[in-house]
C-alpha cells in the first residue's frame, strides 16, 4: 500500500511537494519583505530589527529557521527541476509548428518560464545570502553597532553601501521582476496543485495571485531604488568617496 514516501517518487507527489513548498516560501518572502521595509525607516529601526531577530530564543530561532529555509528552497528547487526535466523525456520529438490553444488555457509567459525564473532566483538567493549574511565581497569593514548594550552587526550600512552601486540596483531590479513573473503563475498554480482550486474560487485565487506577485515585486524593488536615490553611502565606503 502507498505511504508518504510516494510523495517523492511519483509525478503527482513531486508536484504536491513543489506546490506546498512554494506556498510556504510565499509566506517567507512576505515576512522577509515586511522586515526589510524597515530599511526605508532608517538605520536605528533596521539594525534593531536585525538584532531582535538574532536574539530571539537566545539566538536559537534564526539558525533553526535557516535550516528550515534551506530545506524549503532545496525541496522546491529539486521538485521544480524534476517537473521541467520530465518534458524532455516525455516529448523528445517536438512539433514542427506549435501554437497556443487559447480559450480557457492558462499558459502564459510566466507559466512557460517557471524553470528559467526559478533557476535565476535560486542562484540569486545563494548570492544574496553570501552578500549580506556572510559579507562576501563587502565594500569595507563594518564595525559592530551597540544595541541595548550588545554588539550587533551593522547590516544597515552594508545594505546601503551596496545599493548605492548602480549595477547592483540594476541586478536586483531584474531579479525581482523575475520573482514577480514566477509568482504570477506560481501562486495560483500552488492552489491548483494542492487541489485547493475550484470553479467558485478560481477567479479569486488568480486575482489574489496577480496582486501578490505585483506587491512582492514592487515591494522588493522599492528598497534598492529608494536607497540608490535617497540614501547616501556610509562614510568610509569606497562609494562614498565619489
Amino acid at each position, binding site marked *: *500500500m*502507498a*505511504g*508518504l514516501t*510516494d*510523495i517523492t517518487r*511519483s*509525478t*503527482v*507527489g*513531486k*508536484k*504536491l511537494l513543489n506546490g506546498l513548498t512554494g506556498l510556504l516560501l510565499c509566506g517567507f518572502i512576505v515576512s522577509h519583505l515586511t522586515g526589510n521595509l524597515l530599511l526605508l525607516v532608517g538605520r536605528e529601526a533596521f539594525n534593531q530589527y536585525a538584532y531582535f531577530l538574532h536574539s530571539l530564543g537566545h539566538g536559537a530561532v534564526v539558525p533553526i529557521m535557516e535550516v528550515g529555509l534551506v530545506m524549503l528552497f532545496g525541496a522546491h528547487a529539486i521538485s521544480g527541476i*524534476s*517537473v*521541467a526535466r*520530465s*518534458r524532455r*523525456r*516525455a*516529448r*523528445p*520529438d*517536438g*512539433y*514542427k*509548428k*506549435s*501554437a*497556443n*490553444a*487559447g*480559450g*480557457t*488555457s*492558462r*499558459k502564459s509567459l510566466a*507559466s*512557460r518560464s*517557471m524553470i528559467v525564473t526559478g533557476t535565476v532566483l535560486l542562484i540569486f538567493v545563494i548570492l544574496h545570502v553570501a552578500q549580506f549574511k556572510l559579507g562576501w565581497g563587502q565594500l569595507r569593514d563594518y564595525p559592530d553597532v551597540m544595541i541595548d548594550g550588545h554588539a550587533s552587526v551593522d547590516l544597515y550600512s552594508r545594505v546601503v553601501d551596496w545599493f548605492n552601486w548602480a549595477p547592483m540596483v540594476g541586478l536586483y531590479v531584474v531579479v525581482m521582476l523575475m520573482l514577480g513573473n514566477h509568482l504570477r*503563475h506560481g501562486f*495560483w*498554480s500552488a492552489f*491548483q*496543485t*494542492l*487541489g*485547493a*482550486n*475550484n*470553479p467558485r474560487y478560481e477567479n479569486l485565487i488568480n486575482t489574489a495571485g496577480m496582486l501578490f506577485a505585483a506587491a512582492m515585486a514592487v515591494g522588493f524593488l522599492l528598497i534598492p531604488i529608494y536607497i540608490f536615490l535617497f540614501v547616501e553611502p556610509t562614510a568610509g565606503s569606497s562609494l562614498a568617496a565619489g
Partner: protein
Amino acid sequence: MAGNEFSVKLLIWRQSGPAQPGELASYTMDNVLPEMSLLEMLDLLNEKLTAEGIDPVAFDSDCREGICGTCGLVINGIAHGPHSGAATCEVRMRSFSDGETIVIEPFRAASFPVIKDLVVDRAAFDRIMQAGGYVSINTGSAPEANSIPVPRPHAESAMDAAACIGCAACVAACPNASASLFTSAKISQYAQLPQGRAEAKRRVVRMVDAMDEEGFGNCSNHGECEAVCPKEISIFNIGRMRREYLKAVL
C-alpha cells in the same frame, strides 16, 4: 458546383514506419468545398495520391461525429484544430481560407510512438485504465434507484469527467506531454460516486503509477489540455486527482 471551391496547401507528416525517419511532405488540394470536413478533404487527397501511385496518408478516424475519440491530428500546431470543444473530425474546411497552408502532424509523445504517418499507438492509455479504471463489483440487474443515494452535483460532476473519450489530445497539447487530464478524468468519474469510493485510494495510486511508468511528463498547470479537449474536461479534475492522491498516501 456552387463555385465556392478553393485551394489549400498541405504540409503533412509522412513517416513510413515506427523506426523510419519522417518529414513534412507538401501537397496542394484544389476544389476544396467549405462544407467538407478536414478528414473528407484528406480522403480526397488519398484518392488523388492513390491514382498517382503514391502511398496514401495514414490517419485514424472512426465515427466522424466527435464521440468516439479515434481521430486526432495536430492542425496548425493545435491538437484537434482551431475550434474549442471539438474533435478533429468536426473541423470543417470553412475554417481555412483560400491558399492557406495547413500543417498536419501526429500527436507527439514518447509514450505514443508513431505507427505510420499520422497514426500513433495510444495503448499507453489502455494500460493506465487497466491499472485501476474500473469498479470491482459483480454486475447484475440494475439496483433499485433509491438504494444508493447520490447527490445531484456529484452525479453531474462524475458524468462530466466520464465524458472523456480518451482521444489523447490533452497529452498532445501539453507542453510536457503529461497525461494528467486523462488520468484525472478517469479517477474523478469513480471517486465521486459511492460505488467508486470503496477502491478510491488504491485506484489513484495505481493509475498514477501506471501513468508515470508509461513515461508521460509531469503537469505544469498550463491548462492547454482543457482548452483542446473535445469534451471540455476541466483541469479541476487534476486538482481532484491530487487531493485523492494525498488522501491515499497520508
